[in-house]
């Protein structure tokens, strides 16, 4: 089960792996400030990357994030490959789960560590390279401006990315599920790109170790009274992320974990 450790629980899993890059959206760029952040602010941003057997992509992802944000924390979730060493060499701080505990557990570890390092903003980012570093600025702008506590990346807000129909339906299902359980009216509930203010990051406790944390997190944010907002982001479906993405059958497990936690 734990094979499923990359982030946005959902990436396209079939055909068209060499498909054209998802059309950059004509998205409403409401909150994005194009001016680069001052050094002090960049250093108060901590990027948490949970990674499980991501040796292929981790070094590049860490390096590209560190070009802008120096503080990168890779949570090596019991990888059997060189993920942790490569992340360290690429300049990330490495937290090592000695055994695989799942993506939810890895995120919680990374967030706790970032908070202990005086992070002002904590960003979660996928290890498989599906997110764009340039989107991080959009994610953190509303938080640095003090408008919201949490921003959630959305690949659907104001855009229509290309993906196989089955995957679109599955994501839609996950969306309806999360809307039903949490009452939050969102457009993309299973996106690994999220950002938290320091107070939000200190408060959040992800208890579901596996992939069901996506629903848990949104529900928590929705009911805790934290101010949140969705931000349009791009998902780059690379051949690698496509191959490594979640299988649709994982959805059953997610729903099971979610309800077991509710009722037991």
């Amino acid at each position, binding site marked *: 089960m734990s094979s499923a450790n990359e982030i946005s629980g959902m990436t396209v899993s079939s055909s068209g792996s060499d498909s054209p890059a998802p059309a950059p959206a004509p998205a409403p760029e409401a909150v994005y400030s194009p001016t680069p952040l001052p050094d002090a602010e960049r250093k108060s941003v901590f990027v948490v990357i949970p990674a499980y057997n991501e040796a292929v992509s981790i070094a590049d992802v860490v390096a590209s994030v*560190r070009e802008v944000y120096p503080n990168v924390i890779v949570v090596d979730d019991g990888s059997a490959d060189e993920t942790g060493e490569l992340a360290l060499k690429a300049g990330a701080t490495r937290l*090592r789960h000695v*055994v695989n505990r799942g993506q939810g557990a890895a995120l919680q570890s990374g967030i706790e*560590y970032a908070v202990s390092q005086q992070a002002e903003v904590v960003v979660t980012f996928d290890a498989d390279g599906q997110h764009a570093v340039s989107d991080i600025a959009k994610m953190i702008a509303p938080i640095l401006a003090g408008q919201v506590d949490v921003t959630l990346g959305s690949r659907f807000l104001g855009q229509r990315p290309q993906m196989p129909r089955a995957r679109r339906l599955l994501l839609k299902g996950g969306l309806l599920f999360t809307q039903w359980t949490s009452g939050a009216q969102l457009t993309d509930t299973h996106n690994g790109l999220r950002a938290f203010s320091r107070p939000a990051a200190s408060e959040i406790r992800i208890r579901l170790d596996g992939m069901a944390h996506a629903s848990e997190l949104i529900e928590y944010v929705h009911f805790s009274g934290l101010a949140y907002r969705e931000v349009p982001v791009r998902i780059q479906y690379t051949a690698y992320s496509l191959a490594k993405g979640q299988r649709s059958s994982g959805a059953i497990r997610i729903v099971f974990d979610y309800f077991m936690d509710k009722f037991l």
Partner: protein
Amino acid sequence: MNPFQLIGIALFACLIVTQVSRMIRRRSIPRSSLAWLSVWTAGIVSLFAPDEMTRIARALGVNRGADLLLYVSVLCGLLIAFVIYTRMRQTDRQITLIVRQLALSTAEIPVDFASAGGESFEEFGIDGAGYVEEAGDAFFGSTFGDEASSQVLKADLDER
């Protein structure tokens, strides 16, 4: 008495002897042992006097003693599955907390933090270069000291 009864009774008798000898050896009578003893005894009774089982079954609205036994064992099976599942989740949760605590107290910071984010670490009182393993204590002072962290862990566990 047919062979099945003989084998069954011998089996239950063995279980009872084992249980009782364990109780004697440990000089204690735990409630769980009593529960098991009563189960084994009921097994022997039902083998000795199958008609009694049928009588009890009739009284409960089930036709045959064998059916009653089946229903009861299915229910017990489900109950045991439930208990084990709950216990397992609790153990999982505890393992995660331990793994997390270990990860936090052995954070490794990159060798070349002079490049992009270098100074940011100096703010936290790190001057040397290279790996800092077991960084927990050195790094955060008391925040992640042994005492504090074990308290955090304990608090987390108590939450459950």
